[in-house]
């Protein structure tokens, strides 16, 4: 019998923790290091691929994702060595997706061909904004022109290209965003990740916000209007939202990210990488050492970068599944939720949310509407509230 995760697939996430500079909005596990011993890091990643594949034999791999940090700063031969190792360990899906996150600078663009030759078939580029003032404000090292140039190269080199923009930025209004998004849509990417600026604790923006020194933030109502405009324009351009912040044409969705949202299994390697893997019918959450050097030493001395492994309870799995799957326009499978949770949703809550136009409910599925996705946190709080 198929295990529940198989509906979502199986992917491998590889975290490269280094950046040239830390962006003020970024709360990912990224570090700036002056010198990186690529050979030593390569050996550690290969050792981790060996460990994880030994634990999960016989699986077919749907996707590989190099995230960071800035993985486009990796030596292409490191990427090639990892992909070679992986090919030897697991059966691969015919349409294996191999994504690498890239910064759009000229330095990195020069390596694109080498990455493609290593086996990368999709890049996700952090353009973030299309004008220099905003790029500077976001702490990005590239200019708008440099970004466009790098994007064009990527377009030539890789079969699939996506890029990120951050909107509802400081001092941005609805018309600014309309113009910028229209320009972005002319670039003919097959996938766009459009994120509203979020001020996270522990970032430079978070610190400035806490002391009241982050001006020009967009009010919630304007941000909501920008969100709606985004859905409209992308849909019209043939890139409908398939997730809260992700838009793609047919067959161009990120297969790797769909594994997360569909509750599939993923192994995570590299500093601070998380995983969800099903072993003997039990779903395990894994985490590795967050600190780059700590992780490296741990792998070298203990043979594993892992610092946490715990069983995710049925209720927690159900909550994660709802939290993730309701982000998708395709919605969630009710039977899967019930199997994890042991109980269905409260019918009164479903009725109320449906009558408010937040969700659509069928025997098989629950799907969020556009209005529901825009306030998904509130919808989830209601759906997953413990019975009173």
């Amino acid at each position, binding site marked *: 019998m198929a295990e529940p995760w198989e509906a979502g697939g199986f992917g491998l996430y590889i975290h490269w923790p280094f950046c040239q500079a830390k962006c003020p909005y970024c709360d990912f596990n990224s570090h700036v290091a002056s010198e990186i011993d690529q050979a030593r890091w390569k050996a550690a990643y290969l050792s981790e691929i060996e460990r994880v594949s030994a634990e999960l034999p016989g699986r077919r791999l749907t996707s590989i994702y190099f995230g960071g940090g800035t993985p486009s700063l990796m030596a292409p031969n490191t990427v090639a060595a990892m992909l070679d190792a992986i090919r030897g360990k697991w059966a691969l899906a015919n349409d294996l997706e191999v994504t690498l996150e890239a910064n759009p600078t000229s330095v990195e663009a020069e390596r694109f061909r080498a990455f493609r030759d290593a086996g990368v078939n999709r890049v996700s580029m952090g353009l973030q904004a299309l004008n220099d003032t905003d790029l500077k404000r976001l702490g990005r090292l590239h200019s708008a022109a440099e970004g466009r140039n790098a994007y064009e190269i990527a377009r030539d080199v890789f079969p699939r290209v996506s890029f990120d923009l951050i909107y509802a930025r400081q001092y941005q209004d609805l018309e600014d965003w309309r113009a910028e998004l229209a320009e972005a849509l002319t670039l003919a990417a097959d996938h766009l990740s459009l*994120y509203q600026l*979020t001020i996270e604790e522990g970032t430079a923006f978070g610190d400035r916000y806490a002391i009241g020194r982050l001006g020009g933030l967009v009010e919630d109502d304007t941000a*909501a209007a920008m969100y709606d405009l985004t859905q409209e324009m992308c849909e019209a351009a043939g890139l409908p939202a398939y997730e809260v912040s992700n838009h793609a044409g047919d067959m161009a969705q990120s297969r790797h990210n769909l594994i997360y949202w569909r509750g599939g299994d993923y192994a995570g390697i590299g500093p601070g990488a998380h995983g969800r893997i099903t072993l003997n019918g039990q779903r395990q*959450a894994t985490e590795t050492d967050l600190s780059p050097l700590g992780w490296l030493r741990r792998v070298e001395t203990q043979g594993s970068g892992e610092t946490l492994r715990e069983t995710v309870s049925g209720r927690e799995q159900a*909550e994660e599944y709802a939290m993730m799957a309701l982000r998708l326009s395709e919605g969630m499978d009710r039977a899967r939720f019930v199997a994890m949770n042991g109980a269905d949703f409260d019918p009164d809550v479903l009725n109320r949310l449906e009558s408010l136009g937040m969700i659509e409910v069928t025997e098989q599925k629950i799907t969020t509407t556009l209005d529901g996705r825009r*306030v998904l946190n509130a*919808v989830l709080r209601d759906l*997953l509230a*413990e019975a009173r």
Partner: protein
Amino acid sequence: MTDLNRIRNFSIVAHIDHGKSTLADRLIQLTGTVAERDMQEQMLDSMDIERERGITIKANTVRIEYPAKDGHTYVLNLIDTPGHVDFAYEVSRSMQAVEGSLLVVDASQGVEAQTLANVYQAIDANHEIVPVLNKIDLPAAEPDRVKEQIEDVIGIDASDAVPISAKTGLGIPEVLEAIVTRLPAPKGERDAPLKAMLVDSYYDPYLGVVVLIRVIDGVVKKGDRIRMMKTGGTYQIDRLGVFKPAMQDIAELGPGEIGFFTAQIKQVRDTRVGDTVTHEKKQCATALPGFKPSIPVVFCGLFPVDANDFEDLRDAMEKLALNDASFTFEMETSAALGFGFRCGFLGLLHLEVIRDRLEREYDIDLITTAPSVIYHVHMRDGSMVELHNPADMPDLTHVDHIEEPRIKATILVPDEYLGDVLKLCQDRRGEQLDLTYAGSRAMVVYDLPLNEVVFDFYDRLKSVTKGYASFDYQMIGYREDYLVKMQILVNDEPVDALSIMVHRDRAEMRGRAMCEKLKDLIPRHMFKIPIQAAIGGRVIARETIAALRKDVTAKCYGGDATRKRKLLDKQKAGKKKMRQFGKVEIPQSAFINALKMDG
């Protein structure tokens, strides 16, 4: 037993923070009543809340033995009384049990309103009064000016005031000598039948009810059979003793002495403060006049946040009531808040103390509804209904008129804040009775409706005067006024716990203020929520909470699953601090914060 001439009984009158407890600590310390290693701050305040807030709630006594300069050892009995206006009546009762008072005034602050109220009670009880100027070591101390103020404002001779610093111990020996030489010895007949005043009582989980008494005539011994003349109860004394301040057994108590007994008494309600204790067989001829029991004047609803805590709350309230006859409660149901209790208190501080104790000692989270006073609702048929809860307001067609309780408020305030204080009193429908000056401070007396004072008057007074005003009040009776019940409707449904009684002329203003407050206090929902204030069917104020437009996590990938799930759990826990009302969730704190006025 102690010779009458070697006994001195006294209390200490002071404003909060003027150093009453510290002075008591020093007297205890200097006379070696408590071993140095057992000393702690505020020896006489036994409850945590008393220590934390620096206030005394129940009367406490301590027996101090003092070898005076005349070569004799004296027994000094100190009765420590509550300093706060809520407990003014308890103070007046305790005063009857002693012959003299130390009037402690902070030499840097001067006389305050509460000092005034309490010192007048001491004067009414025919006390000899010894003024004591505390904190004279502070640079800001102005002993001469404060002496003058004591003479001007209170009208007693302050030329022999004892200058002290309770903190450093300066002047404490002089205070002890003054107690012996300036306060009168008690009077009493050793051979007369037993006549003792019941000063106070409290419940001890191990001993049962502990009764504080002051013997007037006769002698009481362990094992004696006694009778309470008012309640008629008869008991056998199990244990007889004095507080030093720890309990110490004693063979007998004679005239002028103060001590305690236990006698298998089950609850505080079986004892009445002011009652006369005599022997069962050989009774005294006339009982003491006794006191009126103190009655609650402020009411509010207390509801458990978690409905499952209802029974625990009832148990906890019963336990507290064992020890506090002035705290009353009865079951109440609210459409908004479920099952809870309507509770009566002596005042706002009393309310806060009880609520704190329920939350802290019994670990029950509570929702407190708006405090209310007792209205007299006169019906057309000539009957009168006491209204403790606006939700119970009778049908208006049967109501003839409504009366509300009023108070006489005395406020002492430095000149520069007088204007703000007058405005505050005026805004609260006050009528000025008096305005006099004592140096650079004004004393204003206002006739105010109690319902304008129970809620946040004291906070507002402190805030407009930067804490420099002091305030005291007494009830003066009922008066008719144009009072109406104002309802609050959230999402078109009335929320009974937010109903208040208000003067018609102030209704629009209060209604607007409450709607605006609620607009900020209730979080946005997935739909828009109208909030209305209404009198009868007529809406007098309205606000709308816009629908939630955006609340979604922009990025949520594999590495975010754990963190976002925990965040969601935290938000769900936050929802538990809300009350579901129809489709709307109202935060618990909103029920009380909605009423706070900014102006």
